[in-house]
């Protein structure tokens, strides 16, 4: 790591189509930190996460994003993943015809290969994945089914966390991973994430509600509104938001 920072976002502006959605974002994440980004609907949360993962529909118009000191924006999505960026999707897509285990093995081996590590054979892979599935309370049959096809909402989110655990990223971005989960599923998913906390692993949690943060305690909380981070603070900020609503921040910001 060239400058001690995992992720640096500087004055970032971006649009989808002709609509400007991000209007000057600044954010810095160091290894080992957990950041929560909260905000009302349509504040730009998902645009930001998709941009970081490399989605083409999001067009950067100004500013820069550095990952471990290097320009992230010029890299293809697969290259970002190989360098250690992981996005847990808000709505993981279903991929009929591709078995979950096959996909995950292809993914892991692509990343290992890029890191100069040995690719895993079928047996090594299977023992790794079974190890990682412990604690996520996932049915083993989900491995043999097509990726996310017919999975319940909770199963899809657990599958995202499983991928995160297997791929061992440097920066994980979780896009509303708590949405649509009942309290048991939330606990399982949150514990899954907590187990992946390490001193060299940064986590960005994007969430609408505070409840996820009862399980995964953030070091920093940021409030995103209308494409800007309008307030930052520690975990008490999330509690205050829960109590007073986003209107309080908006008023405070103007």
């Amino acid at each position, binding site marked *: 790591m060239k400058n001690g920072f995992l992720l640096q976002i500087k004055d970032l502006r971006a649009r989808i189509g002709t609509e400007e959605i991000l209007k000057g974002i600044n954010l810095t994440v160091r290894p080992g930190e957990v950041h929560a980004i909260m905000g009302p609907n349509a504040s730009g949360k998902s645009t930001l996460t998709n941009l970081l993962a490399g989605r083409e529909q999001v067009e950067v118009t100004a500013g820069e994003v550095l990952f471990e000191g290097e320009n992230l924006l010029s890299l293809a999505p697969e290259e970002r993943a190989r360098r250690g960026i992981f996005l847990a999707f808000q709505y993981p897509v279903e991929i009929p*015809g591709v078995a979950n285990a096959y996909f995950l093995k292809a993914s*892991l081996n692509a990343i290992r290969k890029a890191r100069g590590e040995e690719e895993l054979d079928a047996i090594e892979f299977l023992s790794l994945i079974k190890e990682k599935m412990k604690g996520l309370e996932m049915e083993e049959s989900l491995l043999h089914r097509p990726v996310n096809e017919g999975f319940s909402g909770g199963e899809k989110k657990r599958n995202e966390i499983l991928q995160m655990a297997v791929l061992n990223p440097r920066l994980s971005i979780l896009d509303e991973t708590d949405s649509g989960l009942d309290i048991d599923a939330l606990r399982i998913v949150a514990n899954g994430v907590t187990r992946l906390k390490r001193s060299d692993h940064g986590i960005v949690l994007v969430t609408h509600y505070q409840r996820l943060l009862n399980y995964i305690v953030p070091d920093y909380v940021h409030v995103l509104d209308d494409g800007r981070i309008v307030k930052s603070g520690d975990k008490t900020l999330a509690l205050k938001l829960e109590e007073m609503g986003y209107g309080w921040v908006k008023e405070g910001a103007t």
Partner: protein
Amino acid sequence: MIPAVKQLLADFDRFGKKQPLWLQKIRHEAASRFAEQGFPKSDEEEWHYTSLEPFSGQTFTIAETPEKIPEDLPLLYPLETPNLVFVNGNYSSSSVGNLPIEIMPLQDAIEQKPDLVRESLGRPAQPFVSLNTAFLKAGVFVRIPPKVRLEKPIHLVFYSETHNGAIVSHPRNLILLGEASEATVIESYCGTGRYWTNAVSTIVLQDQATFHHAKLEREGPESFHLQTIQTRLGRGSRFTSHSISLGGRLVRNDLHCLIEEEGGECTLNGLYLKDGHGHVDNQTTIDHRKPHGTSYELYKGIMDGNSRGVFNGKIIVRPDAQKTVARQTNKNLLLSEGAEVNTKPLLEIFANDVKCNHGATIGRLDESQLFYLRSRGIEGKEARALLTAAFAQEIIQKIGIPPLRNNLSRFVFEMIGGGGDA
């Protein structure tokens, strides 16, 4: 008239002089009919999207078997189960062991089963079937006696090889299934050089018979391939077809299923892949004539480069065919700007108590799925191959012959640019 017609019949006078007179007569009539009919024109509905212009100016001759046949034929199913091999339209070898069925090269059946052969030839209406009959010589005769169930697939291989000049072959197969019998036949077409395969297979299922058919077309890149498959289904019989088209410059598959007794069931699966300037045309007709028949049809196409795909699926439900259930779907994936598909599912329903539906789609790879795979480190090209293969898997997984299913799966993945195993 496209010049090829006159030229094609040039070989006729010195062909098959030693065959029995009854056959020579039928062949002669067929040749005259073909001379009258000529090649189909593009204003004929069934040929609207498939131009036969590439045939013009080509000189095709009836060829001999080459002296040396490659030991490793490019087959997707091994020569381990009972098989017959034909090279350049001539019978070459067979290995059928001791089966409780009648199986022989057509030339032997002409001598030993003249009535059955004659009956199966009929009076063809289509020009290319006429042409095939005119040059009838080689192919396979299979008859499964009543109640016999054959475990292993019978594999028919048609290989063509030419190094200078273009050749044509006219394979003719006759497959008869006795009452309550069951069998599987795989037809493999492959080759190298400039050649034309003009094949006809006739399949007759007696009452309660079950027949599985797989056609693997993997002809050489410069070849033409036309085949007509005619199937007749008896009472309560079941016919399953897998039509796989992977090679050839111009490929046309005609598949006719006549459900002529009550409760016949046919399942037609098809997969076609093309790139470059290849052309593939699937024409299927399912003719429901009696009540309680069912037909399920799913054809999927993957088109790349500047290739053209055509699907023309016709389902006819005659007035008598009450309680018919028919479902037909054609799905196409376009991988390039230059690729094109013309699809026309067609229902003609003359009965009032039936359940029929059909549909067709033409689309591209899903951007969200691609992004999902790439966001997990899988390279763009590999991600596209994975999704394309997944599209094909729906058909491949329906094939009930495991070694074929696995070989095909691997081969298709390589064809569409997927790297080894993940």
